[in-house]
C-alpha cells in the first residue's frame, strides 16, 4: 500500500514516480507493469493539474493498493467536477498523419492500460479508481 498527498504542481510527479519505483522494486514487478503504472499515474495527475484548477495550492490524494492479483490505484482531487472516462475526447488513432489531431492521448492510454476504471463525484471531490490485473 502506498499513500501520497501531492501538491497540484508538475514537479510532484517525481515524488510519486520514486515511490512507485520503490514499491515495484520491493515487490519485483515486471518492467512492463512498472512502466504502465507510472504512465497511468502521470497521465491522470497531469490532467488534474492542467485542467482541474484555477490557481495552485490544491492537494491530490493518491493510493496504490497492491494485492496478489490486482493493483488498485485511487486518485482523489478537489478540482472542478470532471469525469475523464466519459468527458475526455477520444482520439482517432486510425487517422493518417495529416488529419491526426495533437493531444487527447493521455486518458486514452490510461483506459487502454487498465482493466477497470470508475469515476464518481462525492463531497466536491473527483474520485477515480483504476484496477490493473497482474498477469
Amino acid at each position: 500500500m502506498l499513500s501520497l498527498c501531492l501538491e497540484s504542481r508538475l514537479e510532484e510527479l517525481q515524488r510519486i514516480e520514486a515511490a512507485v519505483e520503490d514499491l515495484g522494486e520491493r515487490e519485483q514487478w515486471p518492467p512492463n507493469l512498472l512502466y504502465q503504472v507510472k504512465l497511468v499515474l502521470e497521465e491522470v495527475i497531469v490532467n488534474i493539474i492542467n485542467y482541474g484548477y484555477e490557481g495552485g495550492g490544491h492537494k491530490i490524494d493518491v493510493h496504490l493498493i497492491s494485492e496478489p492479483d490486482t493493483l488498485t490505484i485511487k486518485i482523489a482531487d478537489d478540482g472542478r467536477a470532471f469525469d475523464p472516462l466519459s468527458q475526455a475526447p477520444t482520439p482517432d488513432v486510425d487517422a493518417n498523419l495529416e488529419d491526426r489531431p495533437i493531444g487527447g492521448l493521455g486518458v486514452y492510454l490510461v483506459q487502454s492500460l487498465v482493466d477497470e476504471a470508475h469515476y464518481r463525484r462525492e463531497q466536491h471531490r473527483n474520485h477515480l479508481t483504476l484496477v490493473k490485473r497482474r498477469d
Partner: protein
Amino acid sequence: MEISTEREGSLLVARAGGRLDSINAREFDDALKSAISESDQVLIMDLEKVSYVSSAGLRVILLTAKTLQQRSAKLLICSLAEPIREVFEISGFDKIIPIHADLAAARASIG
C-alpha cells in the same frame, strides 16, 4: 533530457536519452526544433536510450512528424524499448510513423 545529433547530407539522426514526459517535453521539443534544419529530408529519431515516454512525449513526436510532412520531409523512429513500443501501438503511431528495430534498419529503409 539529452539529445545528440549527427548529419549526413540530408539525413539527420537525433539520439534522445532519458525520459520524454510532462516535465521535460518542452525541453525535448526545443532541442529538436533547434537541431532540425530546413535542408533535412529525413529525421531518424533514435530512442534506444529513452526509458520512458508518456503522452507529453508522444505529442512532441507527433508535432515533429507533422511539421516535417508539411515540407515533404519525413520522420522515422528506431530502437524502442518494449513497453514504449506498446504505447506507440496503442496510440496508433506505428501506423503513421515508420518504426524500425534499430538504426541500421532505419537507415536501410531510406536506401
